[in-house]
């Protein structure tokens, strides 16, 4: 079934969040106003990205990163036209021009940059193609998405959208089961993370850290998007009186009432 929609309603960070948490494999195709982008994932990790008419090939990436000079780049383009990036990579490593780390780090940086550019796209249609994998001739990386998501979330400025995402600051936060490792947080983000506890409301965390409502909302939004925390009712919050919930105070009668409802609906 479809995973498609409009960027106005579903941002790139939200899509990355979904792909990350669901551990998806496939390609996100985004049709922007003037360009098309392809971002591929394997098991929820960024594997490959290409935007518009950019070549995005290994030689081009290494040239832009000044790892190979202009004449080397031209020579590769002339002589290695039929060579895959994997073959080219091996050739360059064996010839001593670059190391394996050079290749992987520069590809990671390039793919991350492509995704960063997508954060600025507010108009466009997206679809996720489960069966579309990166081209065979290109080198794939395996990059965790959490940091990219947090970075993208920092760019969200609209108060209205933040209020939609986090309507009440009287809710608390708790860590999800996902490990908090290798995540690059700002000082303010760490201040919030330090107080993540079901006993602390977001309002209390903001007050303690002297953060404004919009600041704490933006930070929490990033942590939520990266799947690091989830919203919970505060552990010590008084339960609001709700005397009319059941017509009786007796617990056994309440259970009987629920069982009667179940029985009635089953037979409808």
């Amino acid at each position, binding site marked *: 079934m479809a995973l*498609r929609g409009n960027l106005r*309603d*579903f941002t790139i960070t939200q899509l990355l969040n979904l792909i990350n948490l669901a551990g998806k494999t496939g390609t996100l195709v985004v049709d922007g106003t003037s360009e098309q982008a392809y971002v591929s994932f394997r098991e929820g990790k960024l594997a490959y990205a290409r935007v518009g008419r950019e070549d995005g090939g290994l030689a081009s990436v290494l040239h832009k990163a000044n790892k190979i000079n202009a004449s080397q780049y031209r020579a590769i383009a002339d002589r290695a036209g039929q060579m895959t990036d994997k073959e080219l990579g091996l050739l360059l490593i064996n010839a001593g021009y670059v190391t394996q780390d050079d290749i992987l780090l520069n590809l990671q940086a390039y793919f991350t940059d492509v995704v960063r550019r997508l954060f600025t796209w507010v108009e466009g249609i997206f679809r996720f193609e489960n069966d579309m994998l990166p081209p065979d001739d290109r080198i794939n990386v395996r990059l965790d998405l959490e940091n990219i998501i947090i970075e993208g979330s920092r760019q969200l400025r609209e108060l209205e959208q933040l209020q*939609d995402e986090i309507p009440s600051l009287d809710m608390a936060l708790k860590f999800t089961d996902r490990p908090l490792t290798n995540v690059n947080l700002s000082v303010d983000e760490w201040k919030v993370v330090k107080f993540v506890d079901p006993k602390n409301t977001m309002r209390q965390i903001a007050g303690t850290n002297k953060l404004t409502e919009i600041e704490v909302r933006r930070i929490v939004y990033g942590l939520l998007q990266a799947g690091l925390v989830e919203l919970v009712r505060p552990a010590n919050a008084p339960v*609001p009186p709700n005397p009319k919930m059941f017509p009786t105070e007796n617990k056994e009668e309440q259970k009987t009432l*629920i069982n009667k409802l*179940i*029985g009635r*609906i089953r037979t409808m």
Partner: protein
Amino acid sequence: MQTVKMVVTGPFSAGKTQFIQSVSEIDVVATERRISSDEERTIKSSTTVAMDFGRITVDEDLVLYLFGTPGQKRFDFMWEILSEGMLGFIVMVDSTRPETFREARSILETFRAYAPTPFVVAANKQDMEDAWELDDMRHALRLDKNTKLLPCVATDRSSVKTALLELLYSILQEMESGK
């Protein structure tokens, strides 16, 4: 006569009124008004501005009322009033309209903040070709693994019954666990 109530909430045009109509023994008392905005009018011509009201009689001593909330945000002042005294709530989400997922999350979080009552999420229009998969919806709606996300077709009585039953099972489970 004893009465209890459940609330059916969700974004504009998620299928709340239809959901209640599918199981109510009375014609749903709907307070509908013609849509004023062009954007909303392209989706449907009238909407609930105060509440829908459906009824299921259990026996001569017990009646379940189903209240549907208005989906448009400008009527959200009604939500807290309608949520008072509810046994639990159902959040309806149109599986074919990802543009409403953010609002659905917001409504869900708002209701969760009102009271710690059990809830389920009903993914409506799961019979449509362009419906999102449940797993994708779970992540998009930011639901944890313990939250019930149920495939639903609001026009199908058995599907609606399942959603109501799942909510009642959750209520019973919570009572038995002593929460």
